């Protein structure tokens, strides 16, 4: 069934992993619709994520229109506003970021970077995408059912999520949301098993874990975390679905809703929050770790320098991944849980800041004495550093339990998480697309359009979210349709809100230019060649660009070195590819 390719060069040590050619598709449908090629699945994932992400972007415009110019747009009712908030948040976090980092970049880069021909289980990988698509369609369907999508907030906290005081709570909005999430998790698990097993079991000869590019480390660790964290959300969704449809009371205590006693009783709303945040916090790092990994590689390639402190970077990724499972309740400091938990969770949360800070230092120290090419990927990487550092530092406010008390549930929180897990990872996604587009299509993206895209996005996003912290500081809560003019505002926030909204509209608009660039450059971009950035990692060493099905020609590549041999003294070029057997004169330690 599987055809195992013969060895060509007999001087080499035996392969630990058999060279298996993935099954070839012969029909048109097998190639372009139900493709089992990870590279094609990656494109499908990214395309779908971008499409639904655009919906979320438009929703953010509508929200900003309401907040910036309250009363001007009649069609934005409070119900609609809360539906926008909820769908925007959920789509951005789950259906866009998680899907694009793991389903998109994971699928494209893992096999290429570890030197495999494809994912280990291509069929399961294909199923993963189609279930994801189904999840997205169910989500979209909820916009069209009576009552509209749920307006429960992306945290979906019961009891309100399933009661009639919340849009979609007593209709089908919440049901479709939960079903969609359950589907997403099933689909993701199929993909995630693939990403993890591929990294574990399909690395080519010589590709030890410590030779992997940090991109793979980031995606791999995030995948493992997601595999362990998503079950919590799954359980929470199933239980809430039961509460809503079958009359169980998992999360429902005795309730009086608008004067009427309901038949629920005995459940605990806080239990849901524990389950949700047990998933929700790792989720932050599920998005962040791939971004950390990718940005490390972008910086190294475009500064022509090895990643500074590679070992520390790997350890930091692993430590962050592990610690992020014991900090979840920092989202619950004011939830009414036992106050003594505050001591524990504040401490663990602030401890995570240390490995995170190390990563930041190492990115900057990679720039130090580098040969910095200010290409688009490098610009976006710099944008990432600024926004991530900003968002990470405000995290220290919110993680420090007592400081969180006045700030929690205000716009300060909204500003914080947009900086750290909205803008920063999206900067990395853009940088990564400018970086790998030449490999995916064989052509470069247009530079002029890219420059406009970068500057407007970077400065615009900072202008949106930096002042937003201060809206929260004066006391405006999050999820407020309008604040009015309560006496505690030390200065009216209308002008500031209008400014933020205008900036948000501009930032959103420039994304259209980016999309145009993607399509335009397919035809008109400059031909890129196989390795335009002169990078070392394996994906740039494929025999063809774009890589064909099976990635490598007759032979899998052999790996002789780590992924960061840039500007090595004595080397003939300023980079030495991972599959290049060159040995420095000084020797080093030969294996």
């Amino acid at each position, binding site marked *: 069934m599987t055809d195992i390719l013969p060895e060509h060069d007999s001087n080499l040590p035996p392969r630990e992993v058999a060279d298996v050619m993935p099954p070839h598709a012969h029909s048109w449908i097998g190639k372009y619709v139900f493709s089992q090629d990870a590279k094609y699945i990656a494109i499908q994932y990214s395309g779908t994520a971008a499409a639904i992400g655009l919906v979320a972007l438009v929703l953010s415009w509508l929200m900003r229109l309401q907040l910036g110019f309250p009363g001007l747009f009649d069609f934005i009712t409070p119900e609609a506003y809360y539906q926008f908030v909820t769908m925007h948040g959920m789509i951005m976090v789950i259906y866009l970021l998680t899907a694009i980092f793991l389903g998109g970049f994971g699928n494209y880069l893992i096999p290429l970077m570890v030197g495999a021909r494809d994912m280990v289980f291509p069929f399961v990988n294909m199923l993963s995408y189609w279930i994801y698509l189904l999840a997205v369609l169910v989500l979209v369907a909820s916009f069209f059912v009576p009552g509209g999508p749920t307006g*429960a*907030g992306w945290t979906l*906290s019961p*009891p309100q999520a399933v*009661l009639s*005081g919340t849009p979609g709570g007593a209709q089908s909005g919440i049901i479709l949301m939960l079903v969609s999430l359950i589907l997403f998790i099933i689909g993701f698990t199929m993909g995630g098993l693939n990403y993890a097993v591929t990294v574990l079991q399909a690395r080519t000869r010589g590709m030890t874990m410590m030779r992997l590019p940090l991109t793979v480390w980031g995606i791999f660790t995030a995948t493992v975390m997601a595999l362990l964290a998503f079950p919590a959300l799954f359980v929470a969704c199933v239980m809430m679905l039961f509460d809503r449809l079958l009359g169980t009371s998992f999360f429902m205590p*005795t*309730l*009086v809703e608008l004067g009427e006693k309901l038949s629920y009783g005995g*459940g605990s*709303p806080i239990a849901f929050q524990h389950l949700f945040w047990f998933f929700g916090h790792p989720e932050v790092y599920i998005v962040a770790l791939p971004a950390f990994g990718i940005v490390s590689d972008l910086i190294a390639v475009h500064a*022509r*320098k*090895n990643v*500074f*402190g*590679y070992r520390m970077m790997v350890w930091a990724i692993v430590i962050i991944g592990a610690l992020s499972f014991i900090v979840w309740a920092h989202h619950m400091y*004011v939830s*009414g849980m036992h*106050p003594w938990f*505050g*001591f524990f969770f504040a*401490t663990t949360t602030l401890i995570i*800041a240390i490995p995170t*800070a*190390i990563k*930041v230092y190492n990115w*900057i*120290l990679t*720039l*130090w*004495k580098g*040969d*910095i*090419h*200010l290409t688009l990927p490098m610009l976006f990487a*710099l944008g990432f*550093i*600024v926004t991530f*550092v*900003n968002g990470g*530092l405000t995290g220290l406010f919110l993680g*420090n*339990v*007592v*400081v969180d*008390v*006045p700030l929690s*549930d205000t716009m300060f929180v909204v500003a914080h998480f947009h900086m750290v897990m909205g803008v920063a990872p999206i900067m990395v996604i853009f940088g990564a697309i400018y970086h790998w587009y030449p490999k995916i299509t064989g052509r470069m993206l247009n530079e002029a359009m890219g420059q406009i895209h970068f500057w407007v996005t970077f400065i615009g996003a900072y202008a949106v979210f*930096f002042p937003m912290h201060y809206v929260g*500081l*004066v*006391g405006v*809560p999050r*999820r407020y349709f309008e*604040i009015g003019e309560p006496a505690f505002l*030390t200065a009216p926030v209308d002008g500031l809100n209008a400014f933020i909204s205008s900036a948000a509209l501009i930032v959103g608009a420039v994304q259209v230019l980016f999309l145009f660039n993607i399509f335009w450059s397919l035809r008109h971009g400059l031909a890129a060649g196989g390795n335009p950035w002169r990078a070392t990692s394996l994906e740039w060493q494929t025999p063809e660009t774009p890589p064909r099905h099976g990635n490598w020609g007759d032979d899998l590549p052999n790996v002789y070195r780590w992924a960061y041999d840039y*500007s*090595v003294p004595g080397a003939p070029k*300023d980079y030495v590819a991972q599959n290049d057997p060159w040995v420095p004169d000084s020797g080093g330690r030969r294996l």
Partner: protein
Amino acid sequence: MLIAVVLVLIVAGSVAFHLYSPWWWTPIASNWDYIDNTLVITFWITGAVFAAVVLFTAYCVWKFRHRPGHKAEFDPENKRLEWWLTAVTAVGVAAMLVPGLFVWKQFVTVPANASELEVFGQQWNWAYRLPGADGVLGTADAEWVSGENPLGVNPHDRFGKDDLIIEGGEVYLPVDQPVKLLLRSIDVLHNFYVPEFRAKMDMVPGMVTYIWFTPTRTGNFEALCAEYCGTAHPFMRGFVTVVEAAEYQEWLQEQLTFEDYARTASEPATRLAER
């Protein structure tokens, strides 16, 4: 090179915005200036780190920009430097965490002389309950809610009979007297938040949560709901009026006990007249 300049401008602009913009938290009216102080410490530390990191990045970008013939240094790691940075970071983090934990200890430890006030949330308005002459709040549960008993006070509990029931969203507090708020909801999550007092906590149906504080100046303060509770969440407002002790006693005299309330509830006209 533009990017180096922009990075510097971002730092300068952010600091200027912080220092000169009029948007700052509202003047405090409770004992929790500790919280404000911790927040200010955190602002200083994080602000310094932000400026240092971004300015250093800008410097690197400018200094090590690509020029023909320029070559990067091969520099895999520097153990000493990394450990130093780790240690310094750990100290900075501890400098924020330790005061924070001390204040949290105070935050969750209610002083023995605190009086009690129950804050009651439901979609989408506030009500309050005070222990009556006996000084003890009767038990209560969503189970008992009815037209005559909107707060669900346990009718079989003798401590509840003299509890004062306060509807209409506004409540009085005596100045300089520590108060423990017992927070209760009968439908969904709410959160009683008066920005001037700094403290806040969710109210969760099925349980009673609490916060405490001491009002330190008189005045009329707006209370918000700070936990999403459905469509009318932003319109769920209340008022806390902090007054001198004498005025507070006067106000207390005007309030209905649970017993009276239940009796008059069946005759709404009388109740309105009494107001």
